[in-house]
Each structure stands twice: as structure tokens, then as C-alpha cells.
């Protein structure tokens, strides 16, 4: 046995020293981690132990004014996966794919992600949820969720708007009152292990969610239904692009109904209702689809502007009466034209058979442009402009909807030239939104107060307690009660005797005014595209309903407001009176109704036909386009032999070919600007080549040309 060497003992001591050093270093590390960095690490640890699960609040309900549910939240189920807990991803995805009918691969991709939780599918049916739960797949859970549901489908879509898949409001009331409807989410805090199972210590904490506030609209579901039905019918019958109906309570400014057809189903806002469109949209690229969606969601009633045409005469008359520049006794003389404005000749609707002398009432009944130009002139542009502004044109009504447009009115009186004043008097050269017009007419009907259109009446909490209510809001007094009464009497006569007779309802005093205007597309009057409208008030003695019907691009033949829009208003009003139990009051006039047979005026010239119809006490309408006394009537409505009431209107349609013929002007030698002006004035399409002055034109000057051909002009 030999003893270890001295060097070994030295080295052993050295080893002991090294060990001691290492222990000191480890003590330093432990101290650093457990004392100095402890707080930070503990925070990280706490974060991973604590799982806070959001408890979604129930989204508030949207009610109509009578407490009927228009938008509700229903239970739905969402499938979640925790990839860490899935033992056999392939089997699991196969099982899920079978129940939910989704591609196996997509599921497999989702459940193999390195994430703590993955959403597999939102909003599955109760049956699917039950089936999945029965399978008892580890790492897959079915969670109860809320889904927005609109029980009436495409009903009041433009008012209600819609939500996204996570219940965030995206449009309409859903968007504007999103904060109230959403409520405050609750939280479920618990300590869990790495696989999200609750730990045996530390209890759980639950913070209850606060459910969303419910919104009570001013809309009446029943009246909305009448409006939707009538609009849909008109859309089909008139083959129109859009039909918009707004029903308002004039005294409060409450919107009782507002619809535009075609619309969408807020349950599925990205799919058009029309099957043909659905197919077309399927293959569209996302960008184009986006555009289509926004077009679909565009609320015509507040977002689109149009030329009001004759309906605007109500505003002109109200202003003139209020300023006393016109009274019921004022007479106007119509010779068919306004010729004293430089560079412009304005025609009356019936310039070929002028109205002659007429009272204010008759001028309104006849919708005589010449009379209204004179009325506007007597009022003066300052006064007229004052009332246009006072009635709220050119500014938003501040209705609770998105995308409202202010319309277009002259920026100041300085830019109103003589011709502008004249055309504005009969509603041309000005652009308004439907909501502005009905709001202005409501102001006239309620005694002169311009109201802020009210869409939301109040907000109620879970238990139905009112938490916030919105009172009707007067913006300003525009006209006196007296003026209001006078205008109403004028409107009544339009319906009982004038161009609005198709809105006449026996037993009720309905007032209204029709309008027909050519559409303006890209700053020019678009040939063949019209907007026919009717604005009405009833009952005249105590107005409770104002209605505006707009038929955009009717293409089933007729397009006069009196023919396409007034009957729609009549349907809605009649049903609404019935529903609101407003009893009819028959006067003696109503009981004696004189009937007359419509004569055959086809193939007659307009001059002759006019005379025949006037003699029979019938009224008639024709389009605005250039007519000559020799223009032939090719069709009429109603057809010959139909019995109608005395005073009814017959729509006359002209030979389009005859009216489409124009004479080619002389263009050679003129500058480009001049040529453009001439051709624009004639509403012709053209193709200009080169620069300088015109040297060649096709067709030649003086040739008879069709309105639709393209003019070629060469410049040098």
C-alpha cells in the first residue's frame, strides 16, 4: 500500500477550491433569480398560469317602436381546439370533418398549429354541436356563443345594418349604436396547468359581463312591412333600378318606415338576394366584390342625391306664401315658354298646349313650370335661397345612419344666375337626398317646424327599464302655421284634382306632389333615365303621416311620378290608415263619382289629343323631351275604353323615332370649345380628333341625324 503523492494532495485541495468556487457561483445564480429577478419572473409565471376567458355579453336587441324584435342575439356554437391536447391529429380532423362537412386537410392544418387555442368553426348548429360533443374528442371543445340574427331577413336592412362574425356592428344602427349594443364583456379568471386544466389551488374569479343596451327604434314594423311590400311590388312592376319609400311622422320627425329595394339580408350581407347576381358574384375578384358590396349596402334614402323636379315646387310655394310674394289669389299666365332669359328658353311641361291664366292652386295642380318660374322671380333669389337653406337642403339631416350626403345647392346667392333661379323654382339644378325632401315636407305639414329625423326613440336595459330616451328635436321654425295650412290645401287639391290623383284614397284627405326628373349621370342629363317621385301628406286636417316614394329608372313603359310613384304611396297610406285606425270621413264629393270612358288618342298628334282629353275633363301627361305639335302618340295608359273618374290622368307616349331626329349643326371653322358646347347642348355623343379649328365633320351640316349616333369632327 502506497500513499498518494504530495502533488495529488495539492491537486485535491485545488479541486476542493474549484468546487467551492462553483458552489459560490451557483449560489449567486440562485440569489439573482430567486431574489433580484424574482418579481419579473413571477409575473411571467403568473401570466401563464392565469387564463382569463372572456365571457361575451349578450348584444342588445333592436326593437321597433312597439317592442317587436328586429335584431336579436341567439345561441350558437363555436368549435375550438387546443392543439397541445390533441393526441391523434389525423383521426381528430377526420372525425370533425365528417360532422362539420369541411375539408379534412384544412382542419388538420389548424389543429397542428403551434398555438394554445385555434378556432375551427364559428356558429355551427345545435345538432352539429351535440354530435361533436358526443364524440368526446380530446383537445376539441364546443363553446356556446352568441350570433346576431335578423328574424325578418331582408327587412329594414338599411336601418338595422349588420354585424361581422364577431358581433361588431358594421353598418346602420348596429354600427352607430355599437358601443351601447355591445355591452361590457365579463371575465372568467382561473389558474390552469399547461394544458389549461384548472389547478387544485387558487379559486376562480368570475366577473359578470354587462349585457348590451337594447335600442328601440321609431320604426313601426307593420308600416315598415307595408312600405317594403309596396316598394318590392313597384320594383318588379316598374322594372326599376331602385324603389325607395320613406314614411315619417311629421310632428315628431319619427321615421316610421324607410326602405329601398332591392336590399340585402343582414344575416348574410355579402350575398345578393337575386340568384342570377349570386352566380355572377361568385367569380368576381375581391376588389370588384368589395365595390359591389358597398354598392349593395348603400342606403339610397340618405346616401344618394337626385334632382327633385316638381316635388320641389312645394318648397317654392311655401317660401313664396310665407314671404307674401304669392297668395292664393295670385294668378300666373302660362304661354308655354320663358323666353326672357339670355341664352336659354325654358319650356313648360305643356308648352304645346299652354295653361294660360291660372291661380296658384291651378298652377300647382298643373305643375306649371312657367307659373313657378314667375313665383320664384317674385320671391327673389335671396329669399328663395334663405328658405332652401332653412328647409335643410344642402346640409345633412343628422339622421342616425351612415353615409348621409348633404346634397348640392348653390354655395351662395352670388352664384345664382337668373337661369338658376328660374330652374330651381321647379326643382331643377339642385340636388337633394330623399330624407331631406321628406323632412322639409314634414316641416311644412306640422305647422312649420323643421325636425331632426328621429330613428331611435330610447334605449332600454336587460329588464326593459329605459336608460336613455331621445326627445323629438326641433331644428328651427321655417314657416308659419298659416303658410303650412295653405300649402297643405294646395297639396290636397293636387291629389284630388291634379297630377297626384293616383294617390287619391276615398274618404281620406291626402295631399301630395308628383315629380319627374331626368337623371344626371356624370354631370349630364342621361337620356331615357328618369326618376319618378311622389311626396305626400295625410290626413290634411291633422297630418300624421308624410310619405316619399322614389322610383329610380322605371323601365316598364311609364315613368311619370304620378304614374309610377303615386300608386305606391296610395297603397302604403291606405294600409297604414287602416292599421292606425284613422277612420275615413266621406264628404259629399266623394260619394258622387262621375265616370268617363278613356278615348282612343293613339296615332293622333299631341295637339289634337290634348284637346280631346281636356274636353272630356281628363288630364294628361307627356314626357319633357323635344316635341313638336306634330309628334304622334304611339301609346296611352289607361287604354281606350277603360272607365275612369273624371279628372283622371292619361299618360301619353310619343313616337320615339320622330323625337330622336335632329338636324346636324354647322361646325367647320369653330374652335374645339365651341364645338363641345354645341354638341353637349344637343346631347350628342362625339369623337373629336386633332387640335385647333374644325376642318371636317361627319355627318354633313343640315343632315337629319339620329340622336344616338356618334359625331366625328376633325381639327387642325
Amino acid at each position, binding site marked *: 500500500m502506497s500513499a*498518494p503523492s504530495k502533488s495529488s494532495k495539492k491537486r485535491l485541495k485545488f479541486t476542493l477550491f474549484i*468546487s467551492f468556487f462553483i458552489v459560490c457561483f451557483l449560489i449567486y445564480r440562485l440569489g439573482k433569480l430567486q431574489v433580484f429577478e*424574482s418579481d419579473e419572473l413571477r409575473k411571467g409565471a403568473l401570466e401563464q398560469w392565469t387564463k382569463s376567458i372572456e365571457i361575451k355579453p349578450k348584444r342588445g336587441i333592436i326593437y321597433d317602436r312597439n317592442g317587436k324584435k328586429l335584431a336579436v342575439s341567439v345561441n350558437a356554437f363555436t368549435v375550438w381546439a387546443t392543439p397541445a391536447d390533441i393526441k391523434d391529429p389525423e383521426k381528430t380532423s377526420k372525425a370533425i370533418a365528417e360532422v362539420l362537412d369541411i375539408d379534412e386537410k384544412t382542419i388538420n392544418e389548424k389543429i397542428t398549429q403551434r398555438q394554445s387555442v385555434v378556432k375551427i368553426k364559428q356558429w355551427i348548429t345545435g345538432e352539429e354541436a351535440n354530435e361533436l360533443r358526443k364524440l368526446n374528442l380530446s383537445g376539441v371543445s364546443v363553446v356556446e356563443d352568441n350570433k346576431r340574427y335578423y328574424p325578418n331577413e331582408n327587412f329594414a336592412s338599411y336601418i338595422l345594418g349588420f354585424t361581422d362574425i364577431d358581433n361588431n356592428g358594421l353598418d346602420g344602427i348596429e354600427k352607430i349604436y355599437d358601443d351601447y349594443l355591445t355591452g361590457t364583456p365579463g371575465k372568467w379568471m382561473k389558474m390552469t396547468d399547461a394544458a389549461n386544466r384548472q389547478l387544485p389551488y387558487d379559486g376562480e374569479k368570475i366577473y359578470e359581463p354587462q349585457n348590451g343596451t337594447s335600442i328601440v327604434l321609431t320604426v313601426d314594423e307593420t308600416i315598415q312591412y307595408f312600405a317594403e311590400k309596396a316598394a318590392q311590388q313597384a320594383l318588379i312592376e316598374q322594372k326599376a333600378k331602385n324603389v325607395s319609400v320613406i314614411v315619417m311622422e311629421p310632428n315628431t320627425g319619427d321615421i316610421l318606415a324607410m326602405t329601398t329595394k332591392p336590399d340585402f339580408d343582414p344575416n348574410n350581407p355579402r350575398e345578393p338576394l337575386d340568384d342570377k347576381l349570386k352566380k355572377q358574384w361568385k367569380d368576381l375578384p375581391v376588389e370588384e366584390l368589395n365595390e359591389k358590396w358597398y354598392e349593395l349596402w348603400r342606403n339610397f334614402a340618405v346616401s344618394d342625391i337626385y334632382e327633385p323636379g316638381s316635388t320641389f315646387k312645394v318648397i317654392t310655394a311655401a317660401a313664396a306664401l310665407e314671404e307674401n310674394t304669392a297668395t292664393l289669389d295670385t294668378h300666373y299666365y302660362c304661354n308655354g315658354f320663358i323666353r326672357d332669359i339670355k341664352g336659354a328658353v325654358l319650356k313648360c311641361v305643356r308648352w304645346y298646349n299652354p295653361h294660360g291664366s291660372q291661380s296658384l292652386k291651378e298652377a300647382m295642380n298643373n305643375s306649371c313650370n312657367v307659373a313657378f318660374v314667375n313665383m320664384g322671380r317674385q320671391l327673389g333669389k335671396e329669399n328663395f335661397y334663405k328658405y332652401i337653406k332653412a328647409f335643410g337642403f344642402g346640409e345633412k339631416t343628422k339622421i342616425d345612419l351612415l353615409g348621409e350626403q348633404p346634397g348640392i345647392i348653390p354655395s351662395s346667392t352670388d352664384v345664382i344666375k337668373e337661369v338658376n333661379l328660374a330652374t330651381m323654382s321647379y326643382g331643377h339644378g339642385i340636388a337633394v337626398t330623399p330624407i331631406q325632401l321628406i323632412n322639409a315636407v314634414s316641416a311644412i305639414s306640422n305647422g312649420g317646424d323643421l325636425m331632426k329625423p328621429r330613428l331611435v326613440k330610447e334605449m332600454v336595459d336587460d329588464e326593459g327599464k329605459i336608460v336613455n330616451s331621445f326627445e323629438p328635436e326641433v331644428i328651427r321654425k321655417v314657416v308659419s302655421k298659416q303658410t303650412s295650412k295653405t300649402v297643405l290645401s294646395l297639396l290636397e287639391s293636387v291629389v284630388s284634382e291634379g297630377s297626384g290623383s293616383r294617390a287619391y284614397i276615398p274618404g281620406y284627405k291626402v295631399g301630395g306632389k308628383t315629380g319627374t326628373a331626368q337623371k344626371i349621370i356624370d354631370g349630364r342629363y342621361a337620356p331615357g333615365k328618369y326618376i319618378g317621385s311622389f311626396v305626400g301628406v295625410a290626413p290634411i286636417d291633422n297630418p300624421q303621416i308624410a310619405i316619399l316614394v322614389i322610383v329610380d329608372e322605371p323601365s316598364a313603359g311609364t315613368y311619370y311620378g304620378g304614374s309610377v310613384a303615386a300608386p305606391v304611396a296610395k297603397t302604403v297610406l291606405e294600409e297604414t290608415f287602416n292599421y292606425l285606425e284613422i277612420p275615413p270621413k266621406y264628404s259629399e264629393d266623394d260619394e258622387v263619382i262621375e265616370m268617363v270612358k278613356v278615348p282612343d288618342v293613339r296615332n293622333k298628334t299631341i295637339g289634337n289629343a290634348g284637346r280631346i282629353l281636356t274636353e272630356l275633363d281628363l288630364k294628361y301627361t307627356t314626357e319633357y323631351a323635344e316635341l313638336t305639335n306634330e309628334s304622334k302618340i304611339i301609346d296611352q295608359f289607361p287604354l281606350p275604353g277603360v272607365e275612369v273618374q273624371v279628372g283622371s290622368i292619361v299618360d301619353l307616349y310619343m313616337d320615339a323615332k320622330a323625337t330622336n331626329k335632329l338636324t346636324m349643326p354647322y361646325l367647320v371653322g369653330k374652335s374645339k370649345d365651341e364645338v363641345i358646347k354645341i354638341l353637349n347642348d344637343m346631347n350628342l355623343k362625339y369623337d373629336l380628333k386633332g387640335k385647333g379649328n374644325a376642318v371636317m365633320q361627319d355627318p354633313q351640316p343640315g343632315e337629319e341625324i339620329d340622336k344616338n349616333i356618334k359625331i366625328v369632327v376633325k381639327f387642325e
Partner: protein
Amino acid sequence: MAINNKKKGKGAVDFTLFLSVMMLVFIGIIMVFSASWPESMMKFGNGYYFLKKQLVSGILGFFVLLLCMNLDYKIYKKFSFPIYILSIISGLLLFTPLGVEIKGATRWLNLGFTTIMPSDIIKIGSVIFFAAFLTNKRDKIDSLAHGTIPALVYIGISCGIIVAEDLGTAITLAGTMMAMFFVAGMKLFHLIPLTVGAMGALWYAVNDPDHPHRIKRITAFRDPFADKLGSGWQVVQSLYALGSGGLFGLGLGKSRQKFFYISESYNDFIFAIIGEELGLLGALFVLILFMIVIWRGIVISLKIEDIYGCFLATGITALVAVQSFIHIAVVTSSIPTTGITLPFISFGGTSLIINMAAIGILLNISRHVNFGRS
């Protein structure tokens, strides 16, 4: 300390060492119970599965310790070569169908009635044999041809068998044998190319394309929080455990991290659970127990007047020291992660019994020491 020293080999055991090891084993059984509870509940539906096994191993280990304590250590020198060969064979058996693959590594031998870890047998076998080798070559130990080269060959054989399946244990064993070689008197000059070579081998091991997880462990070590949910997961979870334990700990049994945040919390990361439940104070207590074991071990090597006893004591002490240092350094993220258990404490029957046997040998050596003389 030394109460009597009648005949050589019949003196008193080093009681401090004995007590420290028994405390470590006791703490180990308690901590394995605590740390394994969630997994035991999850897998076996009762929380005592790991406790029972560890308790049985502990009792068995205690008897093995007593046996070794009373068996003259010199006998190992006689049989050192067969012991070595047997331990190497046990390692080679891993490559036969007897080898059991668990979690991607073949580290266990299935003997039918139980499974054992050959790496633990190789560890002790190598130490016994290497001590004998160093004793025999003591005069030429500083020569290259008779000292360094054969020493390195044996180190290579021992570690080579386990390196593929268990890098951590291979490193432990290499460190242990190098410490023995160092104490025995290797030429320090030879250390230079050796260090370079070791660095190279380590670099190769880390960048080995067959083991891509090793390089990930290095990046995860540099900034574990960069990929908290991926490669940095283990390190971050270990740090969270220590940090949330703080100074006093969450209390015995109250670790949150053992609930599957730290995988096999009763094994390669048990020190983190100690830190979490018992705080810095508990962790320091365990660390100091290890320091005492190492201190006593080195003191025994210093005092023993027999060169084989000195080298054997050095080897056993180094085995405990290297392995416990690496384990604690991994848990505190002081070095890159390498899976290695904490001697006496981590769950594992073979490991516990072999370690206790080794301590028994060390205690037997201590009986040959005359402590009173110093």
C-alpha cells in the same frame, strides 16, 4: 469526529457524510412525491406511483449502502477489470432488443422484472476501474505514451458507449474521469491539446446534424425568452419556477410549474421544483448539503493513506460533484440545457441505488482514515 480507530477498516464512518447523504435521499423522496403528483395522477390515477418506487429504491439503496460500507473497498481493485467489462457489456446490451426506447432515447434495459439504466452502472464501473488503472500506472502517469494516451482511451471507451443516447451522463463521466486523472498527476501540459480536443468534440456534438436539438439548446440558452413557447420552453419554465419561489417558496407541495409546465419535473428539473416550493432557502440548503458531501469526499481522499482509496474516493466524489453541479447549472440556466438528474434526489431507481452504493464505498474508505491525526 473519529471516535475510535482500532484496526484499519474498522474505524468509525464519516458521520457527517452519512448524515448529509441520508438527508439528501430523504429530501429526494419527499420532492419526488411532490413533483410527480400531477403526472402520477394523470397517468395512473393515483398520486403515489412515483413515491412508492422511489421509497422502495431508497430502502434498497440504504441496505446496499450499509453493505458497501462494511465491504473492504480494496476488493474492488482486485476485480476492477471484470467489473469494468461487465459494466461495458451492460451498456452494449442497449443495442440489443433488451434496450427500451422511451421518449426517443434508448437508455433503459428491460430485465423482465425491472428496468435499469446501464449508464449508471458504467459510471461506477468506470470509476472503480480507472482508479485501479491510475494506481497501477502511478509512476508513468505523466508520460504521454503510458499515462495520458491510455487514460484517454479508457475515458473514450466509457463515454463513447453512452454518448449517443445520453450526452449529459457522458459529459458527467468524462468530467469525473478527468478529475481523477488530474488528481492522479497527469501532465498539465497535456491538458492544452486535450482542452482543444474536448472543445472540438463538444463543437462537433453540438453541431451534429443527427442531433439537431443540441444546437437549438445553445440558442435557447443565449436568450430563452426569444422562443418562449418553442426551444426556450424548458429553460423559461425552470426560471419561472425559481423566480416564483422567491426567498421562502410557495410552500411544500404547492408548485404550479410541476403541473406540466415543467416536463418530468421529478427528474431533470427537480431542483427547479425545490426552488419553487422551498424558495431560495430550501435550494441553498440542498446545495450546501451537496457541498458538504463534496467537502467530506475530498477530505477522505486527502486523508486516506492508500493511493487506490484516494483515487476511488476522488472518483466517487467527482461523480456526485460534476452531476449535481451540471444539474443545478442547467436549472439556473447557467449552462445550456442537457438532461441530467440530481444525484440522490431525482426519481430513478438504478441511479439512486448506485449512488448510494458509491457513498457506501466512500464511507468504507472513510473507515480506513485516521481523522484524529490531523
